[in-house]
């Protein structure tokens, strides 16, 4: 049942990112919203649950994007691993370290992309534009990322409560 929730969330994020956000010019520097979901999964969900979603989402993003196939998948896997590694040492899920972890995660993912783009075409002078974009993304992540994380947590809890309620009404414990 949790799979249904993640399918809905992923679809919503994808539509938001590819069909809604492009209409608003001021959101041009917005970070990858699905990366935020990866960070949420890394921080708050068990590895098995998170890994499955990360793999599926990376694959879908790769099919939608013009990026070399596998770039999204790789970036998400590294992001997920990075987050899991960090929470092994630090209590990130508190209010002080959470924004830091969020911004670091977004920058890590964008950094992977920037590196890949630079490696693909070393002659292309993308560094100034790329760095500006990274700064914009960090700012967006700092201002809106926590809300998105909160949204994932809240909607997931509501969904699970709804599903359990339905199961109990149908006589299944």
């Amino acid at each position, binding site marked *: 049942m949790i799979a249904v929730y993640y399918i809905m969330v992923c679809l919503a994020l994808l539509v938001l990112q590819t*069909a809604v956000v*492009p209409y608003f*010019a001021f959101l041009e520097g917005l970070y990858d919203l699905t990366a935020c979901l990866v960070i949420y999964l890394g921080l708050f969900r068990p590895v098995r649950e998170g890994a499955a979603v990360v793999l599926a989402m990376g694959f879908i993003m790769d099919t*939608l*994007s*013009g990026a070399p196939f596998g770039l999204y998948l790789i970036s998400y896997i590294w992001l997920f691993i990075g987050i899991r590694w960090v929470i092994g040492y630090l209590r990130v899920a508190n209010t002080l370290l959470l924004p830091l972890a969020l911004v670091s995660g977004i920058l890590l993912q964008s950094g992977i992309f920037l590196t890949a*783009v630079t490696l*693909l075409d070393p002659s*292309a002078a993308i560094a100034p*534009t790329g760095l500006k974009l990274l700064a914009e993304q960090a700012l967006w992540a700092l201002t809106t990322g926590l809300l998105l994380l909160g949204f994932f947590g809240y909607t997931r809890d509501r969904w699970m409560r709804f599903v359990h309620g339905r199961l109990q009404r149908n006589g299944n414990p």
Partner: protein
Amino acid sequence: MFSKKAVILLGLIALFVVSIVALTVSSRMHPTSHGIGQGGIAVVGPFQQAFTQSVRFVRGLWEHYFFLVTVAHENEELRRELARSQEMNHRYRELEMANQRLRKLLHFREAIPRQVLSAQVIGKDPSPWFKTVMIDKGRADGVDVGYPVVVPEGVVGQVTDASTHYAKVLLIIDKNNAVDGLVQRTRARGIIQGAAEGRCTFKYALRKHDIEVGDTIISSGLDGVFPKGLRVGRVLEVIKRDAGIFQEIEVVPFVDFETLEEVLVVLNMPAREYGAHP
């Protein structure tokens, strides 16, 4: 002496006569005010006034209330009507603009001597690092990988992936895209490749060729993808360094990729000119 009936009859007749006389007399008298009448008026008047005013107040309140309610309803209805009109006006304007765009597309379509398919842009690349768009036509409509995509303003890109009903188009502003091009004025050849900030570079143009700012770059047709003669962009900057055999040319595409809504996919590419595709 008289019966009871006779007394009553006489009384009635007397009353009748008195009445006639009294009326006759009073009707002949001049109407002057007198004390009893004034006293009566003075006593009754305030009550009458109070009652009348109360009735008028209530009636006024009632009528105004209903009037206001009616006005409020009318106002609400008018507001709704205004909103409807504004919405319709907006829709008409939108339709008019779509009509103009589609007319332009149709004229352009007629100008291309090949079969073309119009498609709507339904999504953009999720990554800001790569430039692709999704269109609502796929293999079921005859779209396949490698097919060129154009608009009246110029070249858009080429199909890099296609599912049954949708296709992904790699835009010419993406670094992975390249179009064989010509400078329209001097016929100097080069490769147009995507660059940063929605621009392109015209690569491998020899230093000896005369290329100026403002020159138009068109597709040469030699890449086997894009038909010859389609507009690609305008030269923005020409840099000739001291060393090197090529010049560096920055090109601004004619197509505004931010506002791209409808595109044309060129379908029937002759094997002679486009040997790479069926």
